[in-house]
């Protein structure tokens, strides 16, 4: 098996838009019922036109995207910083690129970009041969 080479990219994947029902479903399933994601009035009070989608809901798009790209590789590390919000109703795109290849693993930079200038999520994933680690 050949590990992907630095510079190799995934095709961009459309993400969302997530509606209030989808956000509420994620809140129930994850236990993250932070009202900022569920209460439009609270979101408005801190300057959002609509509630922001959970950052973890966005991060959850990475696993399936990488598994579809290279089902022979498993995630050993997934780490991300949440920057710009993605609000309910807004579309986004997931992009990923291999940054580094080691003897038995690769490091990818993954971004989820919404309609604002900056990304919603900047993440790194380390993949290695094997079955799913989680």
């Amino acid at each position, binding site marked *: 098996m050949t590990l992907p080479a630095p510079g190799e990219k995934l095709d961009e994947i459309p993400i969302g838009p997530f509606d209030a029902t*989808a956000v509420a479903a994620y809140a129930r399933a994850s*236990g993250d019922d932070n009202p900022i994601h569920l209460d439009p009035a609270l979101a408005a009070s801190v300057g959002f036109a609509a509630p922001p989608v959970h950052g*973890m809901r966005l991060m959850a798009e990475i*696993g399936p995207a990488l598994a579809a790209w290279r089902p022979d590789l498993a995630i050993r590390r997934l780490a991300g910083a949440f920057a710009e919000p993605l609000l309910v109703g807004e579309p986004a795109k997931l992009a990923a690129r291999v940054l580094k290849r080691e003897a038995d693993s690769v490091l990818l930079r993954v971004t989820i970009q919404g309609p604002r200038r900056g990304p919603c999520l900047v993440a790194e994933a380390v993949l290695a041969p094997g079955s799913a*680690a989680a």
Partner: protein
Amino acid sequence: MAEIAGDTPGEFILGPIEAAADPAEIAAFRAALGSTAPEPPPTYPIVWLARPALRAALDRALGGRFLPIHESQSFDYERPLKAGGRYVLTGVARRESAPDRLILTAEAQEADGGAMAVRLRSVLRLVEIAGNEKK
């Protein structure tokens, strides 16, 4: 759960708490993601941070006037999570100021044998919202 103040001011030891990878919970989590994959999603362990025992401890660490904003999250996987598996979660929550943050590091080990399964790190920015209940 056990929860005691750490040696460092602003640091709280969390757990150990039981953290089963409940098949029904995994199925609900997968459904909320629209996932059809059979294994637990990589981000599934985040549900453990919402366990009542852990949340109660975090709430005590935070006090009552903050809206937590998730700034970053990491997972380091040592071995596959098993649906139906039993894990033990332990961690440390550290409060930082300027800016006000809570940094949670935790690890889940298999309840039988103690093998490390996954390490988590969460950074929460704490925004004071007068008149609103926090998370």
